[in-house]
């Protein structure tokens, strides 16, 4: 193996080692956030506050999984474009039943 090739392999190993350390950190963060989710539920907060807090924590957890385990933090533009379109339709899908409930303002 040439010196250049040996350096490339070494750099690659260091890069993967760095990734592995991030995976472990994310794992610990996800565990802590799971405990927080369950602990908050024990306070029996009013429903609007409980929903907001639970979904906020779930969104942080989901973002960690998507960004680091699914490598979205360093993905190509085309993947972001696909997800942006999906996200727009998903928000519309979730918003629709909420609008139907808003005293007939949107849908009578």
């Amino acid at each position, binding site marked *: 193996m040439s010196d250049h090739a040996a350096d490339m392999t070494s750099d*690659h*190993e260091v890069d*993967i080692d760095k*990734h*592995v350390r991030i*995976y*472990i950190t*994310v*794992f610990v963060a*996800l*565990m802590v956030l*799971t405990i927080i*989710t*369950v602990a908050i*539920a024990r306070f029996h907060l009013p*429903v609007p506050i*409980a*929903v907001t807090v*639970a*979904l906020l*924590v*779930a969104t942080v*957890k*989901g973002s960690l*999984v*998507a960004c680091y*385990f*699914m490598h979205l933090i360093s993905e*190509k*533009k*085309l*993947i972001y474009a*696909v*997800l942006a*379109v*999906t996200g727009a*339709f*998903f928000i519309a*899908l*979730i918003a*629709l*039943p*909420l609008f*139907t*409930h808003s005293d007939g303002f949107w849908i009578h």
Partner: protein
Amino acid sequence: MDIPYTVAVRRDTGLTNGKIGIWLFLASEVMLFGALFASYILMRVGATSWPRGDMFLDVPLATLNTIVLIASSVTMVMAWASLMRRRFGTFRIYMGATILFGLVFLVVKYFEYSHHIHLGELPSTNNFLAIYFTLTGLHGLHVIGGMVVNAYFWGPGAKLWKTNPTWFTNRVEHSGLFWHFVDLVWIFLFPTLYLL
């Protein structure tokens, strides 16, 4: 004829075809689960009363399952990292652990379901249980699907490692993307159904 762009990236997209394929599939999965979440919201906001999840469901068991599924996501990504380091033996250990965690998840779910059925709490009992069984049932089917694919790469599919290790690594990455998505769905299902 060989499948094009399994290893080399396309110049126009900067990606392999498999990578684009799995992300498009996951986009369709977001809409599938999104439709069911929308149904849940519609039923909940339209109901005069709605039970808290912990009135019917076992929160400690679901918490255990959340931990198991998150752990399986870590072992999955470590399986891929092992292949990137060209350590096939380590890959087998991590992939085996991922499949085992999936199995633990399903066994716990089996105990939860059988407990409900024993008490006569069926999907036909009320809207809460109907959407609970629909969402968790569909999620469970995804866990089974992911386990089948992972078991294939752990077993017979691993032959590809000897002839084309980069293609095999890419395949494991795509299978991992699906597995992490299944974990991600559970991260939202857990508080929505069990805690609110």
